[in-house]
């Protein structure tokens, strides 16, 4: 029998302050840089036009730009997309979006026409165009935010029924932590946030929640056994007991994610990046956000479970204090 990290007894939660500092620093760095440059939202959300071009020969990007400028399409973002013969042209500055309100198809047609004039009809092909009016973009943005908030609400209700509100709240807080780290990651990697990436984000939330639930399920079970130990110890024990499962599942999910990242092509890549990061942040938050938050809630609003309750509420405080000392040493 091959075993990885079997029968371990690490004191995971002891490090929560260090981990909190790291994750807060990461979030602050990511969200703070929003002040310098906004999120890279796809035209689905901002409105605008995207044209994906396939050239027969690698073109000169400068020529593409000057051709578009002459045609009156200023400030278009030209990016290589996969090979050096494939490019995307994105016109999503306010002027382009305003022109869009007359009808979304206009700019794409212009881009295709002027570039074909410049490079020759047979030397480039339009693989994909997207043109989104500003109103559609606003609606999609609102839809995405509603979807995330609604999934939180539903999760909270379901877990409150299946566990209890303390667990549910801790799980949802851990999951919302993942929203922030993932947005920070998207910002720092300058990944384009499209509808597919939002779907990826929701998958990450589901995955992270799964991870938290697996640990909490073990906590629930260990609490029922009524061992003479504090909640702090129960949490640590549960994390350790579920460790082999976590490692194995992360390995298989990572295998699938990396296949997508390297082989599924350019369109899916941002989604795969989000998922790859999601595995990390999901695991992290299940241990270092969900567990400490549960301890904190437990201290503030102790469970009414008779005699055991006093010990399980009193100790986390002292433990926390001790772990602070360790962390700063």
């Amino acid at each position: 029998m091959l075993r990885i990290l079997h029968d371990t007894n690490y004191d995971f939660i002891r490090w929560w302050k260090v981990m909190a500092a790291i994750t807060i620093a990461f979030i602050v760095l990511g969200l703070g840089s929003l002040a310098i440059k906004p999120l890279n939202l796809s035209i689905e959300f901002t409105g605008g036009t995207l044209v994906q071009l396939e050239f027969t020969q690698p073109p000169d990007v400068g020529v593409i730009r000057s051709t578009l400028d002459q045609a009156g399409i200023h400030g278009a973002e030209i990016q290589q997309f996969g090979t050096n013969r494939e490019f995307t042209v994105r016109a999503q500055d306010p002027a382009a979006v305003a022109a869009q309100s007359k009808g979304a198809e206009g700019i794409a047609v212009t881009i295709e026409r002027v570039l074909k004039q410049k490079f020759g009809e047979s030397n480039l092909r339009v693989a994909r165009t997207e043109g989104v009016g500003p109103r559609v973009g606003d609606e999609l943005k609102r839809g995405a935010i509603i979807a995330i908030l609604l999934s939180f609400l539903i999760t909270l209700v379901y877990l409150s029924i299946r566990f209890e509100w303390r667990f549910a709240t801790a799980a949802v807080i851990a999951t919302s932590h993942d929203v922030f780290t993932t947005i920070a990651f998207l910002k720092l990697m300058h990944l384009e946030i499209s509808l597919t990436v939002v779907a990826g984000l929701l998958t990450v939330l589901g995955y992270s929640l799964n991870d938290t639930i697996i640990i909490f399920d073990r906590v629930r079970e260990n609490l029922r056994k009524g061992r003479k130990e504090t909640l702090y110890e129960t949490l640590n024990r549960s994390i350790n007991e579920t460790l082999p499962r976590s490692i194995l599942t992360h390995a298989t999910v990572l295998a699938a994610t990396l296949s997508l990242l390297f082989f599924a092509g350019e369109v899916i890549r941002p989604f795969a990046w989000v998922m790859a990061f999601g595995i990390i942040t999901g695991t992290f938050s299940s241990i270092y956000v969900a567990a400490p938050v549960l301890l904190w809630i437990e201290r503030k609003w102790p469970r009414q479970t008779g005699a055991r309750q006093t010990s399980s509420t009193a100790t986390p405080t002292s433990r926390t204090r001790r772990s602070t000392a360790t962390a700063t040493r």
Partner: protein
Amino acid sequence: MSLKWRIAIIFGLIAASFWTLFPRTVIERVKRNGEFVYDTVRRVPLKRGLDLQGGMHLALEVDESKGLVADKSKAIDNALKVVRNRIDEFGVSEPVVQKAGNDRIIVELPGIDDPRRAQDVVQKSAFLEFQITDETQALEKALPRLDALLKGKTLATADSTPGAKKDTTASSAGLQSLFTADTSKKADSAKTDSAKAAAGTVGGPGAFSKLVQQGRMPGEYYVAQTDVGTMTQYLALPEVAAAMPPGKVLRWSSDTVSLGGRIYRGLYVLDAKPIITGEYLTDAKPNTSPTEGNLVQFTMNNEGARRFRTETGRHIKDYMAIVLDQRVMGQPPIIQGAIGTNGQITMGGKDLQAAQDLALVLRAGSLPVPLKVADVRVIGASLGQDSIHKSITAGVIAIALVVFIMLFYYRFSGALAVAALVLYILYTLAALAGFQAVLTLPGLAGFVLSIGIAVDANVLIFERIREELAHGKTVRTAIDEGFRHAMSAIVDSNVSTALTAAVLYQYGTGPVRGFAVTLLAGIAASMITSIFVVRTFYMIWLNRSRDAQTSLSI
């Protein structure tokens, strides 16, 4: 549940999955001789979304830049009929035209990747005309002339021309020229186009007359659906146009009729000059009268009423075709007497829906609402094909890696999980086909990802079994306990993921919806395979040897 039943259920599901996924004959709009018709094709019943098969997605909105529209929802209802009519001219397989929300029309055109054609859908405003059908048998008289003309003339048929794309443009330009005859310049260039494309079959004796059959009323003819493409090309020829009876026009019907098992499209010979156009119509609404059945009542403005009274007075007992954007809508009704401000069209036994549709047509002509494109996505067919190939590559590699990890770590039990994974893939695809879900690129990515996630339930169970074994339980008890204890974690985590997927489905659009559907199908299939199927495998293994197994490779 006894082992026999378990095995029966698993095989039942396998059989059902194969049956669902087996290539079958479906009725689809496909291209035959350059014309899209409903026909039977054999294919695996998995629908590909626009991002995988290539095509165009449009969202249309009321354009209020030239003035506010009071009731957008009603305006959109009117426009819907017009848009549908024009989409039909595109001749696209499986087009989607539907109202989204209160003020938007969604159009999906698989296989079309020319954004310029989107403009055609919206930039023409609907044009409604009332035209009297021909009573003089003008076409019959012209037939010998037409046949003689076509004799010895070569003509392209769609499947004999190499370069399918070129052919598409030529024949669609032909369609265009027939239906937008007033833009003579455009029509001329289109005619030369299809004349240039001409090369192939030779029109034999009676080439024209053998395609048309007399219909049920004067001026009505039927052309078999399979011949519509050929006929369209004949009509596009300049010589044929010149030989047509003067003062008459030919218009296709918007509907097809089925006669003796064959599908025919109506072709009408109409007086070229309309007795009235839609601009004089102020309202039209469906109604039901106890004596006359379903009918449509319409109202003219003062000037229209005056003209209409004179014209209808002259044409009593004639048939009046209602022509929207150069297509005859429904069966032309007979004129019973002079009609003024208020008129009605009885539907002759047709249902209320038909009356509603006709009222919409009439209103569409009277209330042309300008539309604009709010959202357009065009995906080239080759890009879609490329996406499919890449997703399959990623999927195969993901499966190989997951199989390796499971076999390496769990040995024999891992092999059971891998066997269950194969069933997982089969069941998921079958569920997608069975619910007629649309496969999109994010959906495929989600499916690849789900292969990694699907084994999680088995990992949970195996780890539990290991723990139970470590506690010194017998193999049989350890397996039982392992499944029992892992259950709550599996159910809770899967249900919460399913709830998230349901939210995605509700609030997502197009590709994202495809993702949510794949996720849901995957969750259901993984619950069945990792819990029920793997459990059954263990039971078979335990049963095989009478003396209880003493060790388990896990």
